[in-house]
């Protein structure tokens, strides 16, 4: 039995608490990388992370790319969208196909 976590700054994520997802505001922690890892290694199979924070934790997120769980999904925060989410998908296409054939419109 797994749960869903939402990680990011408080203002962007507190709404998800109402739906019954677990929210973690780790933006003020000293060692966000370590904190994030401890969340990712616990009972969560899906972790939504704000794009702003995802940019800072690129290395940590990358270390889970071969694992089936957790799925770490960037979502836009309250400050808007910096395009990490969609550029990730682009990267998958480039990796698999060799060049970007989906997003070049």
């Amino acid at each position: 039995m797994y749960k869903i976590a939402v990680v990011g700054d408080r203002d962007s994520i507190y709404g998800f608490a109402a739906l019954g997802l677990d929210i973690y505001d780790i933006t003020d922690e000293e060692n966000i990388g370590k904190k994030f890892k401890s969340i990712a290694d616990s009972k969560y199979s899906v972790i939504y992370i704000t794009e702003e924070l995802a940019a800072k934790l690129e290395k940590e997120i990358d270390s889970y790319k071969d694992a089936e769980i957790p799925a770490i999904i960037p979502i836009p925060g309250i400050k808007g969208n910096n395009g990490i989410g969609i550029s990730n998908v682009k990267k998958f296409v480039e990796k698999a196909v060799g060049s970007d054939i989906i997003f070049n419109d």
Partner: protein
Amino acid sequence: MASTQVNPTRMELTRLKKKLITAKRGHKLLKDKRDELMRQFLDLVRENKALREKVEKGIEQANKNFVMAKAGMEEQMVTASLLAPKQEVTLEVSKKNVMSVNLPVFDYQTRTSDNNDIYSYGFAFTSGDLDYAVKYLADILPDMLRLAECEKSCQLMANEIEKTRRRVNALEHIMIPQTQESIKYITMKLDENERSTQTRLMKVKDMMLKQAHNY
């Protein structure tokens, strides 16, 4: 073949021929695997793109409403309203095997079946914008889960496609030509040996005849 030395023996020739057959078979199988993975990947990635656009729009909408709600109420009230959620979401994870790639499948259950349990507060002292914000998020949640599933699958499949493509290329451009080259080299060497033995024998025969009968 220049790079590696092979023994021009019959045993080596048989071994290489077997190796070539296996390599060709493997190449064909891996190529099929790559093509099928690619087909499924492209479908999935298109869905992924559409879902992501939808989810990002939904969250943006919800965030707008949250900002409005915050403007209309005291911040402590907003925090307090969402402090004790009634609803809880749990996930069941199963696996789907696509071309030997294990993809996760998420099934989610809510603790209570009542849709209104997402509102964990009384309506008397909260702004209507908060209700909308929570509603938007709740509406987008199934899509978010599907997005998680989709995006993870895309990631895993992209890795596998890359790996498979490398294998196909290595077989096609290195393994198979090299083995063919070796086989050719051994065959020619063996033929050459045979011819030289033949001529030697003929020569020896001539010499022996000359010695015996003084031709």
